[in-house]
């Protein structure tokens, strides 16, 4: 069997048993990338030689009998928002084109320390702002189900790489849905851990109070294995939670929802939701009920204000964070002709270095934070954030987890929403509330919408630091649905066969 078709858990077993070497596994994935990535464009940079050197190192250690991490030798794709020492890190932006960071993100370090083989850096919407990868300065990635469709975003390169079997695992970041939405539309699993559960050190900042790194996998167990390895307290991140990682792997293996109380969020349905997505979602909920969960309907009345609050809070934080790109110490510098002053050089560099969406959000944030408007916009949005947290608290006093569709629609066409910001923003309608509240959520495939044959995701939300509950529910749904389909959903992705 082609090594790229195995799950990470299967590869880990084969590596531990000595049936395959890390070098063979890595080479198989590099070959797959070489064969398909000109069509998928999941990667901005493929680090073939470094990956093979890392793989040989793991093989040497195993041959010596060193004790290795469970995922040692398993390849992974890394979103280009994580700094990687000596490897290009662009964040999908011209302003960082050619930048080689002098340090590794904490998560990059942890991947390396656990022997995961970094295949390269994946495409993304510029500075993680977008839901399609169309805002990447280096061109969009494509959905392996249908190459004319977007793979979601902003972590769309990572979701496309995993769905196209270019990597068994990937990492991304979720600020408004940037892991769960691409996972849903590519038919794979993606988790936004509890905010503070995974380190932001070395993750190029978009909206610091929301940015949350997390895992992608083709199965719930793979996603849990990566979640466990990448998470945990980091003294280098002042918002990191100093507590043990929730038992996500055992929860994924347990896959048991009997007696669990599941709340269907009634506010995340209705107008704007594709009928085929709702049908698959409802079938998944019925399955969970059949497996012994107690399902009730729950209302979170302020969720309808989450999207407007997010589009004030995130741009406000971005306008502040992106001030660091000033053309002085690293990155692009335009117009330094000896006559222009620093401000002119800055303004020319930022004009040419940033794309349209980034400029839109910087200006929107500057507006929301300006004196005279601060109370009416940023201040009000912060109050709405409190109301959304209270909605979650009330709901979690009645149920263990909440569920909704992960996205209102399946993958849309490349170009369809590219110059309609409000339409693009709606892709994150279901995912934003969890980001604002800082709690945990996952998307797991729940079938194909009848209208277009494209994947839909079941979205499960849990309280902060109860990430394990996500994996219990997602694994139970995955097992039941896969049995019904007779094969993993992704086996039906034919975009690369045509």
């Amino acid at each position, binding site marked *: 069997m082609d090594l790229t078709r195995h799950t990470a858990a299967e590869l880990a077993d084969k590596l531990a048993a000595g049936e395959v070497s890390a070098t063979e596994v890595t080479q198989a994935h590099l070959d797959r990338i070489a064969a398909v990535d000109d069509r998928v464009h999941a990667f901005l940079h493929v680090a073939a030689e470094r990956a093979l050197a890392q793989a040989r190192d793991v093989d040497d250690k195993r041959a010596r009998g060193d004790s290795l991490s469970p995922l040692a030798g398993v390849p992974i794709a890394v979103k280009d928002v994580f700094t990687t020492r000596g490897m290009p890190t662009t964040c999908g932006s011209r302003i960082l084109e050619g930048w080689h960071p002098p340090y590794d993100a904490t998560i990059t370090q942890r991947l390396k320390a656990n022997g995961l083989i970094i295949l390269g850096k994946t495409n993304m919407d510029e500075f993680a702002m977008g839901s399609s990868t169309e805002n990447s300065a280096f061109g969009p990635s494509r959905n392996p189900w249908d190459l004319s469709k977007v793979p979601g975003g902003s972590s769309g390169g990572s979701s496309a790489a995993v769905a196209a079997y270019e990597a068994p695992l990937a990492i991304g970041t979720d600020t408004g849905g940037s892991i769960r939405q691409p996972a849903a539309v590519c038919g794979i699993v993606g988790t936004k851990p509890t905010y503070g559960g995974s380190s932001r050190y070395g993750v190029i900042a978009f909206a610091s109070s929301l940015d949350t790194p997390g895992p992608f996998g083709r199965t719930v167990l793979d996603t849990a294995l990566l979640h466990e390895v990448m998470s945990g307290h980091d003294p280098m991140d002042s918002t990191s939670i100093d507590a043990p990682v929730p038992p996500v792997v055992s929860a994924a293996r347990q896959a048991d929802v009997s007696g669990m109380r599941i709340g269907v969020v009634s506010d995340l349905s209705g107008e704007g939701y594709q009928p085929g997505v709702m049908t698959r979602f409802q079938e998944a909920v019925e399955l969970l009920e059949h497996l012994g969960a107690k399902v009730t309907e729950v209302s979170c009345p302020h969720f309808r204000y989450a999207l407007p609050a997010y589009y004030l809070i995130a741009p406000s934080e971005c306008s502040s964070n992106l001030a660091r790109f000033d053309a002085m110490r690293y990155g692009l510098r335009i117009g330094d002709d000896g006559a222009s002053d620093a401000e002119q050089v800055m303004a020319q560099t930022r004009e040419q270095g940033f794309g349209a969406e980034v400029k839109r959000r910087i200006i929107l944030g500057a507006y929301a934070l300006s004196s005279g408007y601060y109370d009416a916009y940023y201040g009000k*949005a912060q*109050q*709405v954030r409190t109301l959304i947290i209270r909605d979650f608290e009330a709901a979690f006093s009645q149920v263990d987890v909440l569920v909704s569709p992960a996205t209102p629609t399946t993958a849309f066409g490349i170009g369809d929403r590219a110059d309609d910001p409000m339409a693009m923003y709606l892709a994150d309608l279901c995912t934003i509330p969890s980001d604002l509240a800082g709690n945990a959520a996952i998307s797991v495939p729940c079938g194909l919408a009848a209208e277009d044959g494209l994947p839909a995701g079941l979205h499960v939300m849990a309280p902060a630091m109860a990430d394990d509950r996500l994996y219990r529910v997602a694994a139970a749904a995955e097992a039941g649905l896969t049995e019904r389909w007779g094969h993993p959903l992704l086996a039906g992705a034919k975009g690369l066969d045509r």
Partner: protein
Amino acid sequence: MSITRDEVAYLARLSRIELTDAELDHLAPQLDQIITAVAQVQEVAAEGIPPTSHATGLTNVFRDDVPVPCLTPAEALDQAPAVEQQRFKVPRILGIEE
């Protein structure tokens, strides 16, 4: 109208982005549409609701002050657009007349 073309131009200048006229023509109506939509937050956010700036509730987080190796001057300057005498070389920051 919630935001004018002139206001967008002013905010872009504050944000050090030298927008072209064509971009201003395009961006101003888009931003107006977005601001009108996000203004919905004003419907529900009433007096007495405390604001949330981030969700963890952590304050004054410290770590042990342990000396660790830092970047060498060569590493620190390696990615600079311009370097002179082991320093970042930047465009002039004062006007000719100042």
